[in-house]
């Protein structure tokens, strides 16, 4: 301990045990964010060593098989080996630090890898249908169940989804935004109740929104399982999402701006209209688009309030059902017919593209807010 408190000079007496003075004097702090060669070699060495060991054990000695099991064993063996190698030269806290670091990186890679397999597998399974232009322009009714990919497509479900989500946005945007403005700008004891209810509703299963619309609209008011029923169910699921994320966006608006507006004699309404809403606009747009992305992929309420059809129907008030992308994907991949499953995955690619596109738009808006 006394060594560390010594001044950094070359005149240090030689310590018993044969440690050269130079190694004592160069008492540099441990770089926290830089990886030392020791760390690199022991980790890469353990990685290779454990791979060879597990390969030998897993495939040649133990009667095991399967890639997933191999990777799991490899990772566990790597952690053990890395910890063992580190403990040869380092005290326990350093060993624990290294092993935990390896665990964190491993977990991060696992999640990233899984997400990539989800996306890549969807693209790969739908690749056959994606290059047929009729897939995007013809309704499903013009193709047959196991027929060629040159006939039939998903234009009816794409448009159906767009119409349904469009109406749902038209309902949930004013409701959600109004609730958010009420919670942040008007306030009072009532707003706490509203906030609690909205927060609780955000995570209530979307299936129940479908049940609710079914009970009210179809059982009580004798409606039909048509486009507007789906839109209402989607609106019920989207409103709390809009309200909550819009509230977050509004809360970030500095209170000083509001006070400045009021101090200049502006009424409350014009403060909100001219100052708060424009300041929060990018955040509000992000909130809206995220809820659209959520709504367009929403599938469980559709099983309740919508029916499956291959025919094009673009009238939401019609008595007939109106199909949409998630329901189409669900029905086709359950059908068991190879061509139909490929079409389902093709539709899944389209759905993923829509979600990704909306997502990239939100990132763009968020970046604008930061740079301004």
């Amino acid at each position, binding site marked *: 301990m006394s060594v560390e408190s010594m001044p950094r000079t070359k005149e240090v007496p030689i310590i018993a045990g044969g440690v050269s003075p130079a190694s004592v004097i160069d008492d540099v702090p441990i770089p*926290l964010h830089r990886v030392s060669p020791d760390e690199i070699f022991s980790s890469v060495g353990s990685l290779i060593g454990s791979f060879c060991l597990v390969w030998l054990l897993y495939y040649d000695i133990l009667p095991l098989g*399967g890639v*997933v099991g191999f990777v799991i064993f490899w990772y566990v063996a790597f952690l053990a080996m890395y910890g063992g190698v580190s403990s040869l030269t380092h005290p326990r*806290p350093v060993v624990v*630090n290294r092993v*935990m*670091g390896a*665990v*964190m990186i*491993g*977990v*991060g890679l696992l*999640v990233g890898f899984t*997400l990539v397999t989800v996306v890549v*597998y*969807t693209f790969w399974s739908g690749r056959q249908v994606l290059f047929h232009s009729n897939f995007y322009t013809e309704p499903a009714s013009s193709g047959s169940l196991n027929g060629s990919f040159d006939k039939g497509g998903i234009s009816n479900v794409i448009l159906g989804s767009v119409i349904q989500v469009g109406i749902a946005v038209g309902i949930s945007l004013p*409701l959600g935004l109004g*609730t958010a*403005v*009420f919670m942040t700008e*008007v306030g009072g004891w009532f*707003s706490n109740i*509203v906030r609690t*209810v*909205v927060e609780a*509703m955000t*995570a*209530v299963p*979307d*299936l*129940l929104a479908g*049940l*609710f619309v*079914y*009970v009210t609209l179809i059982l009580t008011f004798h409606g039909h399982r048509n486009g507007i029923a789906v839109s209402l169910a989607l609106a*019920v699921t989207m*409103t*709390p999402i809009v309200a909550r994320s819009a509230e977050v966006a509004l*809360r970030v*608006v*500095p*209170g000083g701006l509001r006070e400045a507006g009021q101090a200049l004699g502006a*009424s*409350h309404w*014009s403060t909100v209209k001219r100052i708060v809403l424009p300041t929060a606009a990018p955040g509000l747009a992000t909130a809206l688009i995220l809820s659209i*992305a959520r709504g367009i*992929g*929403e*599938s469980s309420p559709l*099983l309740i309030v919508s029916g499956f059809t291959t025919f094009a129907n673009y009238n939401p008030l019609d008595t007939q059902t109106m199909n949409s992308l*998630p329901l189409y*994907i*669900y029905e086709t991949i359950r059908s068991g017919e190879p061509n139909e*499953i490929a079409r389902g995955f093709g539709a*899944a690619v389209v*759905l993923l593209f829509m*979600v*990704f596109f*909306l*997502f990239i738009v939100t990132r763009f808006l968020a970046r604008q807010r930061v740079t301004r």
Partner: protein
Amino acid sequence: MVVSASTQSTDDKPMVVRATLPWSDRIFHNSAITIACVVLVIFGSIGVFLAYQSIPTFHRYGLSFLTRSDWNPERDKVGISSTLLGTFEVALVGLIIAFPVALGTALFISEYAPLRIKNLLVSMIDLMAAVPSVIYGAWGFFLLMPHAKLVSRWLAQYFGWIPLFKVNADPSAAVWAQSRFVNSAFIAGICVSLMVIPIACSVMRGVFMAAPLGEREAAYALGSTKWGMIRAVVLPFGRGGIIGGTMLGLGRALGETIAVLLIISLNFKVNFRILQNGTSTISALIANNFGESTKSQLAALLTAGLILFIITLGVNTLAAVLISRSRSGAATDI
């Protein structure tokens, strides 16, 4: 304002100033309250309507609705005990996988990842939350299941002595009964964990990143390693977020419908063996039977929906309380 009488003449009364809101503000306040009330009424009526529709079911079946295990509306016998069990099995498997992974990913993003890719990773987790669940279901059914059944078999081989991991087939047989190891609560749980991870992770990352810098530096200054700092500062600071995020994930796992429905084969036996095929969850039961249900079955399904509503509402409210305790919700100020 009270002004002493000696300096004022007696008939000099203070002017009464009555604050009147402009019309625009009155309209604004009233319409905001109206919208909030409409939203409140809509959400409140979800519970009320489901409860109202459930009265006949409870009248007819009484408590046996909760204790019976089979779902046989044609023979007038319905109960959801096996379904409740399956719901919790799937959710717990999902949570047991998702909790360490979400915790690790959140720590990785907030503590280990280089600054340059941090934003990218945050967007990736958000994107993971936005991927539609039907796509996770398709992935789980076609890609995950063939691999996961080998893991199931391995678990049954070596841990089959635990009743939970027992399977009604010989896992070591040369030609093993593969169909017994698929469509299980275990595989559905793995798939559900993918949907729980982004939710739990983003809550946890939020509280980890908010851990105070001064205390982090203090830990380093006392000679702590990075993991030592995380254990001493970040994890205790984020405890509320860890618990709350996990509870939110549990709420999601309990209600997940379409991915579970794609993977499991519906079965109404009380099945504690999570690796064995056949289970049911409330949401899968409702979604599967809704299309072709008769009037009495419809009422029973709505009652099952009410029970799911109550369970998830309880879990989510608890989560919201725990999360709000761990961070202040005050407005930003300049």
